[in-house]
């Protein structure tokens, strides 16, 4: 397919462009990644980018912990501290956990439902590029938002919650908040594009026989998460637009002097913010629900209950937002109502926890790293969930509001929950997408270091919070009895950092010299294990026919009289999976395309334009329009094997 440029001719621009296009089509080289529309490659790019931001956000966390290690320190100025904790929160929520979950959606969703790609491959590429550029845009504010050469950081300083009117010009001069509002709206577009894509893929692209209740739990959780994204993102978009209008065009949405109210921001932010919490945790719950049955060698206990609990959480997450706002004076009726819903949402969550434990109960457990992380997830998430239920008790919450107890609680859920779950997924599916196993010993070392570091960091914060230490403070006085606990938390944070170094070393080492994985290293249950590792571009040489939940397991095993699994005869297994190793000849895959990237490039132009020079806004709009026109008018598919 690729034709070399003839030596004797001078290389013209047109030749160079042709070469670039052919590289893109050839599934090799850098251009093939930039123009890719393959869900697996987009998933890998999502994963790498979000891991990079994980390191950035982690570095910010270390700076925070260094500043707070001892009382009355001046390692960071109050101003720098505000900017760094704002960017830490914003990065971890919008640039780490959400896109890392999106990485798993991208990698696994089509494989698990037996499809060759997502419903809209180019929209998927667009989603990634918008996220990538939005993340860079947000972080570039460190250098461009203030006077960096004079030593000022320019990053936003309003907290990840961005409470208006603190974010208005009067209280936050400089451009940091502008970057924050525009950056988050750009990231919202990326999430929405992904959300539409995943919902349509799940509802419309399932293999024959893959009914909704034969879908893996991970796919169900992806569906719920994507629907939450579809309906929650517009709410935060409107809130961000309102602040943007106040800052850039002198509107009054949060101008108290003219009759605006800060409560509007809080309602809208948390109406988005609480579904967002479940957007962050449900994917990890899905991952754990896949890992546990594989390593317990038992079906997931109570599959329909786990699925319906996830759906119930999705619905109920819309009715609990005001538990973030008890102290704003909503009145006792509203506070009681939201207290009750907060108790109620713990029920489906508890159902899941019990189902996971029952899955392990009586299983012949294989103690591999993904299982360690999954069990770590259950234990840490349970503590996080229980501390969450304490917020339903309004008078007690009055005391906890804005203390380190809250910080400890949500890290317990988002780190102990989401991040542990996501790492379980990394260890579990790494062999599928690289073809090599990760090193078990190093994996377990990573797990133990992270678990110890995590608890050393966040359990002291629970105590600090109950002792009354407020969050968001740059320093604290001596003699409050907070010194020891803060020092412990700092040591814990560095332990987590050490565990990540082990992880990165493991990834590099395993990529180079890891054991060859084969198609099905864990004796898996779902369709992705039926195809080669790494999967070919077209995933399935022949679209599978699905007959039951955990279809692949049933192709491999039958049951004896006691319900114990018995391996089917090799001939039967061979017969059950006849076509997965074909050569993929004649399969039409979507062509690579640059237009999603061109359209995505418009957004930073609009962002910089709104902040510095309005003339850039039309340039950005033009790029988007050119990208979309090219996208609509180019042919979508080529023959991969031509």
């Amino acid at each position, binding site marked *: 397919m690729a034709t070399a440029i003839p030596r004797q001719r001078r290389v013209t621009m047109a030749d160079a462009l042709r070469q670039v296009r052919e590289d893109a089509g050839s599934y090799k080289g850098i251009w093939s990644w930039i123009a890719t529309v393959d869900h697996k490659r987009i998933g890998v790019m999502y994963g790498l980018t979000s891991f990079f931001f994980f390191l950035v956000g982690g570095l910010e966390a270390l700076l925070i912990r260094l500043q707070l290690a001892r009382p009355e320190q001046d390692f960071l100025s109050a101003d720098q501290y505000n900017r760094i904790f704002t960017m830490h929160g914003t990065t971890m929520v919008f640039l780490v956990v959400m896109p890392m979950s999106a990485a798993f959606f991208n990698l696994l969703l089509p494989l698990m439902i037996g*499809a*060759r*790609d997502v*419903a*809209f*491959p*180019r929209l998927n590429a667009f989603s990634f590029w918008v996220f990538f550029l939005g993340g860079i845009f947000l972080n570039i504010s460190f250098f461009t938002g203030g006077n960096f050469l004079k030593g000022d950081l320019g990053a936003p300083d309003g907290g990840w919650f961005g409470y208006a009117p603190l974010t208005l010009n009067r209280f936050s001069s400089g451009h940091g908040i502008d970057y924050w509002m525009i950056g988050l709206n750009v990231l919202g577009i990326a999430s*929405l594009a992904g*959300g*539409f*894509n995943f*919902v*349509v893929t799940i*509802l*419309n*692209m*399932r293999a024959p026989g893959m009914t909704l209740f034969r879908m893996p739990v991970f796919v169900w959780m992806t569906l719920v998460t994507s629907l939450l994204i*579809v*309906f*929650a*993102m*517009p*709410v935060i*978009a*409107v*809130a961000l*637009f*309102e602040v943007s*209008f106040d800052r850039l*065009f*002198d*509107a*009054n*949405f949060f101008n108290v002097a*003219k*009759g*605006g*109210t800060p409560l*509007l921001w809080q309602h*809208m932010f948390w109406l988005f913010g609480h579904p967002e919490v479940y957007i962050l945790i449900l994917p990890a719950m899905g991952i754990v629900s896949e890992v546990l049955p594989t390593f317990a060698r038992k079906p997931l206990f109570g599959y329909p209950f786990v699925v319906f609990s996830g759906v119930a959480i999705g619905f109920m997450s819309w009715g609990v937002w005001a538990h973030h706002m008890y102290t704003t004076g909503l009145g006792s009726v509203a506070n009681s109502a939201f207290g009750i819903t907060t108790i109620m949402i713990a029920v489906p969550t508890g159902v899941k926890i019990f189902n996971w434990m029952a899955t392990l109960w009586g299983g012949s457990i294989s103690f591999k790293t993904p299982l360690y992380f999954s069990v770590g997830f259950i234990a840490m998430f349970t503590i996080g969930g229980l501390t969450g239920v304490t917020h339903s008790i309004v008078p007690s919450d009055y005391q906890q509001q804005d203390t380190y107890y809250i910080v400890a609680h949500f890290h317990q859920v988002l780190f102990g929950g989401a991040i542990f779950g996501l790492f379980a997924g990394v260890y579990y599916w790494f062999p599928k997408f690289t073809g090599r196993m990760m090193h078990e010993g190093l994996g377990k070392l990573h797990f133990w270091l992270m678990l110890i570091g995590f608890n050393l960091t966040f359990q002291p914060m629970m105590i600090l919070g109950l002792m009354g230490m407020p969050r968001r403070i740059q320093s604290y006085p001596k003699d409050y009895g907070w010194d020891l606990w803060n020092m412990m938390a700092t040591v814990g944070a560095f332990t987590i950092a050490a565990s990540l170094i082990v992880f990165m070393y493991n990834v590099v080492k395993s990529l180079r010299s890891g054991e060859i994985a084969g198609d099905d290293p864990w004796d898996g249950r779902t369709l992705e294990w039926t195809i080669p590792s790494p999967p070919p571009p077209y995933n399935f040489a022949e679209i599978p026919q699905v007959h039951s939940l955990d279809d692949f397991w049933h192709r491999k095993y039958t049951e004896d009289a006691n319900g114990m699994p018995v391996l089917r005869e090799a001939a039967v297994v061979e017969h059950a999976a006849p076509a997965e190793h074909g050569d993929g000849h004649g399969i*039409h*895959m*979507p062509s690579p395309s640059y237009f999603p990237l061109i359209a995505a490039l418009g957004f930073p132009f609009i962002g910089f334009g709104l902040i510095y020079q309005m003339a850039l806004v039309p340039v950005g709009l033009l790029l988007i329009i050119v990208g979309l*026109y090219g*996208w*609509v*008018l180019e*042919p*979508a*598919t080529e023959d991969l094997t031509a």
Partner: protein
Amino acid sequence: MAHAATIAHPETNTGLDNRKLAMWLFLGSECLFFGSFIAAYLLYRDRSTTGPYAKDLYDIPFTSVSSFVLLMSSLSMVLALSAIQRGDLRAMRVWLLCTSFLGMLFLGGQVFEFTQFYREGLTLHTNMFGTTFFVLTGFHGAHVTVGVLILMSLFGMSTQGKLKEGDAIAVELAGLYWHFVDIVWIIIFTLVYLVQ
């Protein structure tokens, strides 16, 4: 976009075209978008501390006429879709042009109204009414503008032979979006202009 899904998977599980399902999801998302702006408008309705107030500015007969224009554009949109479904591309082009013309007429009315309000002293900064009114109706106007661009693009594609008889789905998607924007206007007209 036009062919990607159909080649890889000729049939979908739900029987709904992928693009149509995505459009419905997008419109569902838009409901929350406009819902939030409308909620902000209603919250701030009686909180303006200085004039000019809504009751001093609204010209209900004028806005009723421009609302009627937008409603009629939904009718011509339906006729455009029905034309391409019959295979009558010429009639489709006529109705697409008609729809975008009515859309532009509505936008012209909005520009006129904004100018009028501005002359009478209402800006984004004047009071809560100015802030919420301009931003809400402005975002709606931006949606209508995008709709007009889509309709004109469909018209342009069909004159160049890139929109053929089998592509009724493209017009249908544009139509879904257009009707949605109309419905949002009915809600805005009722809640913002009529209920006071």
